[in-house]
């Protein structure tokens, strides 16, 4: 059989590598140090956020800046229900609440022009922060809440689970008819509507599904903090970091946001713990501007461009 050789290569690439990576990641708590476990926890956190951001915004071109809102909803779900229910139930509650919130936001705003959507979603983060502060201070007379703590291993394995599901969903979406619909919306929304795609429904559903992962991650990460208040939970930086990571890595492929997230988390970890702490946000802004100016298709795009030049694949018939 002629295609058997090609097929094996493909099977290895799509299934083999992920399984090997997963085994290495799964065994990390056994052989890794405590520091590495924490570092990889943050790797997973930002990979999940930026990949789930890419699921919707990367393909449709609607820039959502509400990641922090869904993540914060998860954090508050952990604060409110953490003592009453087992962790897995709370994770589901967090994911579901984010789904509902994203569905509502989508239903309100996704008929609007892209730029209004970006503004609205960013406003949502600030609005939730203000309203919850108001609620806590004026009506409940408290500020902030306590969260039940979990061990580092538990947090790591939960994140690993969410990571696997996110990657599978992102992969399936890319390969399915549904993903094709999303892509045609990103390229030309009117044309997509004309060929019979229910544009609004596809957009809203995808947006809501991508929010599930953000909410679930928020629940898990909340158990690392002892105390949360709206300022911690709805930190606008959690909206920007995934966007920057996805753009830096290049959101044309699934691997792009992953690479961007790993590199950036590492930089962040090195900068915020050293003497550069004061300049971290400044550097963050500078890299954001530079990426948009000089790396519009991200690292993956750059690598592809170099690869094409090296392999000479662009040349005409030889």
């Amino acid at each position: 059989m002629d295609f058997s050789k090609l097929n094996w290569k493909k099977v290895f690439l799509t299934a083999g590598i992920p399984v090997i990576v997963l085994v290495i990641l799964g065994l990390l708590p056994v052989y890794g140090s405590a520091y590495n476990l924490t570092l990889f926890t943050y790797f997973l956190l930002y990979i999940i956020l930026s990949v789930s951001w890419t699921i919707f915004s990367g393909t449709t071109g609607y820039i959502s800046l509400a990641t922090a809102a869904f993540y914060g909803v998860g954090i508050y779900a952990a604060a409110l229900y953490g003592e009453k229910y087992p962790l897995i139930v709370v994770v589901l509650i967090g994911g579901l609440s984010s789904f509902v919130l994203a569905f509502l936001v989508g239903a309100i705003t996704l008929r609007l022009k892209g730029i209004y959507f970006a503004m609205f979603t960013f406003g949502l983060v600030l609005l939730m922060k203000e309203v919850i502060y108001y609620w806590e201070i004026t009506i409940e007379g408290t500020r902030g809440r306590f969260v039940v703590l979990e061990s580092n291993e538990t947090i790591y394995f939960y994140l690993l689970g969410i990571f696997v599901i996110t990657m599978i969903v992102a992969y399936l979406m890319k390969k399915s008819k549904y993903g094709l619909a999303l892509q045609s919306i990103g390229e030309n929304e009117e044309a997509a509507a004309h060929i019979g795609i229910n544009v609004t429904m596809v957009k809203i559903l995808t947006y809501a599904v991508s929010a599930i992962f953000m909410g679930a991650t928020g629940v898990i990460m909340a158990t690392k903090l002892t105390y949360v208040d709206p300022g911690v939970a709805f930190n606008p930086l959690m909206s920007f970091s995934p966007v920057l990571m996805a753009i830096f890595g290049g959101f044309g492929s699934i691997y792009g946001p992953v690479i961007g997230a790993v590199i950036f988390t590492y930089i962040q970890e090195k900068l915020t713990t050293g003497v550069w702490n004061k300049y971290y946000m400044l550097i963050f802004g500078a890299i954001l501007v530079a990426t948009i100016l000089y790396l519009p298709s991200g690292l993956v795009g750059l690598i592809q461009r170099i690869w094409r030049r090296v392999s000479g694949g662009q040349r005409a018939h030889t």
Partner: protein
Amino acid sequence: MELFLNIVLGGLLIGGIYSLVSMGLTLQYGVARVLNIAHGEFLMFGSFITFWLQQHRVDPLVTVLIVGLLLFIAGFIFYRTIFTSIRLRSPNPGVFESNSLLAAFGLYFIVQNIAVLIWGTTPRSYSYLAGSVSIGGALFNENRLVATAFAVAVGTAFYLFLARTRTGKAIRAAAQDATTAGLMGVNINYTLALCFGFGAAMAGIAGSLISICYPIFTTMGLQQTVIAIVVVTLGGLGSIPGSFIGGFILGVIGSAVTYWDAGLAVASYYIIFILLLLLRPKGIMGK
């Protein structure tokens, strides 16, 4: 009656400054197509330059001119360097809008953190024209009246500039359709950079005026940006008179809500924003 005057006049007084900030943003977004999230940071920078000069015994109202000029130059250069190159590389206006929004976010982090490194995060204030005037029984500080008068004067002057001069006509043409205006002989890169510069200058002037009346701090920019976005949406994108009127409307609403419960003022702006997007995304003066 006194309470009513207090709310309405108080709202109009702060509204004058909102108008100026929003006119700047409507130039940047309505014409130059950059939803400049760093707008409030230009404002903050303007207020701190005024504060710094005031410490060196320069009259704050004189600094308005210096701040306006400095920020105009800064805005012009930012547009020519960052945003023009994004614009030329974007395949369509939608891509330009989202990429320039993200670049503006980068600018926001850069400008704000430079200010934090220089001035720290403690609120600063100085006293200027601190006497008060009674209008119908309600007391207002002189400095607030002066600041509002200045804001209105700058706004009116700019409106006349747009309506009467050749450059103003070029800007209005670019607001309608930048590509076509370019084909009609308008130097479009220059005109758009001019708009961005004017927008930054207005934000800076508004910042100077704010520093006359209120305490200033390095993290105050974002809230002003958010207010300006709501006003621009309220007034209609790209409409200078719309932003002018919208600023006063939002000022009065904000002052009424603040009287009722100060903690809800910001939330009320968002609710107005949401209602506008749902009911009339074109705004009051939009076409």
